């Protein structure tokens, strides 16, 4: 990438080996933070030394799992990852997918194997480059280009929907503020070079500068809720970043951030609608796969499908198909066309966290992602839920919110479990987002699920009330299952699956999605709990919510387990991704609350990866739901099955306790069982 046309003005070359003319500032990319993963100690040591010689900041690790946890703990702690292909504990490509989905960092693969098919796998999995061992230092010197290129793409993607153009001033400012790789001294140069670039090529420069070091925006639950509300207010079709930004009125938020978030959200909605159909099935199956799939799901955006496929769950091709279908639009656009990395980006608000059930935090993070996807209000605060009341929009919002807050979701779910409110809500909610505004608690759960619920309403699949109610929960799972359960009429679930960016409105049957979703959902399975709801909800219209999707594998008895398994505060099921505890049955079971519970959580944490729990949970959830739904009497089914709201709540709360953050977010008060209209 050629940052500067000519050699840098007065840029002293820090390393003689730097390619001249390609360095924007004399200091950049000094200080680039690299994580290198290789089980071969010899190679690892050599790489470390080489990278140090390039003036990069190196962290080495010899196991993929350790690498992942390092990345998760330090969300923004690394700029690029270099990984070996063949590792004993995890396939390098799998790691690549995980990273892509959760952290959205550029990943470079390397191997002594230079056979074409392996290199091709790298390409299809979205690797930014492929190095053949023995790696020479010259090859490492230029890896920074991938970081810049990616940022540039991200920037473009983010601004794709923008009606206007980015303010240059903002960018410039951001650039100067953000760019500081090695020392402030470089900023001057950086700016200078940037200015130069601008003259030469404004667009490019903008991308480079603005994207180079944009601070990452953390889409917290509140923020996401605000976002969703704004979107609803404007109408999903008319929501443009500029207006959303104005409505949100959040200082420091840029149109760019909103645009990228919007894009992800749309994908999520789309996924939801498409997934609902298959959700149930998918979810179940999905849930089975706790890891990767779940993670994949988190980013369910169409893109994720890719990841999921890559994960091996779905053949790449089918993935593409799924994505296309799921998205309900040209696959190219969002899903498949986007490189995996980009895709991940879509929903990675803090999704990465969600994805992995590692902890509440994760849940939340992942929930965020998932939330978006399924609208499971994992973290939705009670208040938020309330606000969600307004139809469809709110629902969607809820979902979104929910997702973002895995933790909350749990609480939400709990709430949601309140069947009664849900029914109300469900009805109310619809609109694409059928979010039936269930009472706060309900809503929350709905959020994630809400979408499904909402969708359901629309599609008529769900009894609505039920669907929605469950949806939230299952949605979360469905989100996960998005790929998986697409088939099911879950459409509404699809939401949760997250893949539906279009959200609720698209619930209309994305049957096609469902197929894809199912496969994709694998990842989402992680969500099991949430998704289950979705799946259930989405169950073919003909069915009552009862069980459409639910693989009916869940048995209410599972509930308890789910929660426990979840471990993550996410309480729920959602842990699907996170915890393989397939308590899903449990989660699901609580339509009243549990599923929601889990969904919320799941959505929150949408850790697709964390999935195992979720998956199982989700499944359970689904199963449970399915069982529950059999009759139209949502409420009755809903609640009775519930383990007893109280039980749920307590379980939930207990989990919450562990979660810690969740509690704070929601202030659990919202969740108190009192609120739940049992």
């Amino acid at each position, binding site marked *: 990438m050629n940052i500067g046309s000519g050699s840098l003005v007065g840029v002293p070359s820090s390393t003689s080996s730097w390619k001249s003319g390609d360095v924007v500032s004399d200091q950049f990319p000094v200080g680039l933070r690299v994580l290198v993963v290789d089980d071969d100690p*010899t190679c690892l040591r*050599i790489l470390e030394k080489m990278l140090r010689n390039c003036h990069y900041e190196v962290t080495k690790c010899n196991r993929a799992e350790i690498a992942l946890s390092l990345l998760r703990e330090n969300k923004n702690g690394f700029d690029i990852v270099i990984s070996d292909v*063949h590792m004993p504990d995890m396939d390098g490509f799998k790691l690549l997918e995980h990273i892509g989905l959760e952290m959205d960092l550029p990943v470079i693969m390397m191997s*002594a194997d230079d056979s074409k098919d392996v290199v091709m796998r790298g390409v299809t999995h979205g690797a930014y480059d492929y190095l053949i061992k*023995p790696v020479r230092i010259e090859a490492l010197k230029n890896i920074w280009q991938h970081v810049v290129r990616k940022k540039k793409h991200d920037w473009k993607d983010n601004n794709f929907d923008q009606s206007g153009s980015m303010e240059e001033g903002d960018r410039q400012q951001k650039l100067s503020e953000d760019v500081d790789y090695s020392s402030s001294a470089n900023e001057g140069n950086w700016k200078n070079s940037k200015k130069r670039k601008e003259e030469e090529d404004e667009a490019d420069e903008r991308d480079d500068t603005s994207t180079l070091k944009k601070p990452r925006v953390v889409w917290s639950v509140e923020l996401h809720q605000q976002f969703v509300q704004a979107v609803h207010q404007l109408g999903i079709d008319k929501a443009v970043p500029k207006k959303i930004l104005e409505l949100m009125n959040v200082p420091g938020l840029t149109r760019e951030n909103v645009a990228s978030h919007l894009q992800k959200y749309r994908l999520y909605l789309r996924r939801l609608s498409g997934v609902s159909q298959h959700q149930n099935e998918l979810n179940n199956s999905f849930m089975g796969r706790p890891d990767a799939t779940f993670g994949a799901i988190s980013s369910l955006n169409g893109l994720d499908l890719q990841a999921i496929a890559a994960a091996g769950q779905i053949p790449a091709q089918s993935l593409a198909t799924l994505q296309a279908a799921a998205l309900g639009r040209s696959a190219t656009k969002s899903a498949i066309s986007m490189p995996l990395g980009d895709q991940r980006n879509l929903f990675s608000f803090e999704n990465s966290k969600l994805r992995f059930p590692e902890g509440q935090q994760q849940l939340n993070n992942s929930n965020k992602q998932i939330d978006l996807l399924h609208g499971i209000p994992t973290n939705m605060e009670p208040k938020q839920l309330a606000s969600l009341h307004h139809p469809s929009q709110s629902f969607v919002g809820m979902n979104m919110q929910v997702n973002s807050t895995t933790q909350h979701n749990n609480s939400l779910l709990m709430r949601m479990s309140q069947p009664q409110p849900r029914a109300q809500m469900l009805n109310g909610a619809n609109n694409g987002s059928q979010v039936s505004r269930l009472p706060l608690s309900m809503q929350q759960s709905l959020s994630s699920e809400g979408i499904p619920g909402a969708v359901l309403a629309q599609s008529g699949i769900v009894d609505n009330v039920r669907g929605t109610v469950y949806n939230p929960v299952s949605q979360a799972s469905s989100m996960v299952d998005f790929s998986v359960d697409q088939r099911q009429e879950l459409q509404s679930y699809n939401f949760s699956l997250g893949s539906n960016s279009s959200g609720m409105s698209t619930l209309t049957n994305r049957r096609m999605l469902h197929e894809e979703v199912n496969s994709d959902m694998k990842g989402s399975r992680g969500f099991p709990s949430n998704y289950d709801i979705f799946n259930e909800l989405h169950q073919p219209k003909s069915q009552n919510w009862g069980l459409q999707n639910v693989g009916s594998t869940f048995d209410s008895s599972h509930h308890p387990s789910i929660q426990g398994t979840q471990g993550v505060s996410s309480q729920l099921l959602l842990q699907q991704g996170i915890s393989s505890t397939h308590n899903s049955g449990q989660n699901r079971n609580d339509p009243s609350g549990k599923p929601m519970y889990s969904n919320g959580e799941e959505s929150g944490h949408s850790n697709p990866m964390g999935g195992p729990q979720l998956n199982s949970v989700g499944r359970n959830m689904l199963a449970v739901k399915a069982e529950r739904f059999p009759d139209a009497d949502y409420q009755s089914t809903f609640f009775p099955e519930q383990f007893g709201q109280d039980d749920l709540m307590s379980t939930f709360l207990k989990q919450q306790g562990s979660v810690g953050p969740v509690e704070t977010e929601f202030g659990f008060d919202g969740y108190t069982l009192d609120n739940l209209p049992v």
Partner: protein
Amino acid sequence: MEVGQLQRSFVEYMASLFREGFLDAQFSQLQQLQDDSNPDFVVEVVSLFFEDSERLLNDLTMALDQPNVEFKQVDAHVHQLKGSSSSVGAQRVKNCCVPFRICCEEQNTEACLRCLQQIKQEYLLVKNKLQTLFELEQQIVASGGAIPMVQ
């Protein structure tokens, strides 16, 4: 032996290793990486290589000793050995890995055993050579001399 002589021996020895194909350009890269902040870098890396290789060779021996040889596993080991040997510049060891992998693909136990034998020999040879080289280095340093850069 006086320093100058030691140094000359060192240089010659090093050159011969390259000439005979025991070491390749990658080894030079390692030498270039060595600097004041990591004065023993080459020795450190090569030691890691020795440890790793011996472990892999043991694993290979065991794997090929099974009644039902798991060729995928064998291949994975060989692949790893190829990676590490190429990273340190142990050219001849690396070159043995290529036919070895082909034998794995063909699932030919006999051929694999032969490959294993050969790779063990090459490994021992290069290990010996490198250890001699390091000893020469130590002697030079002990005599107060500087290690000549061979490139």
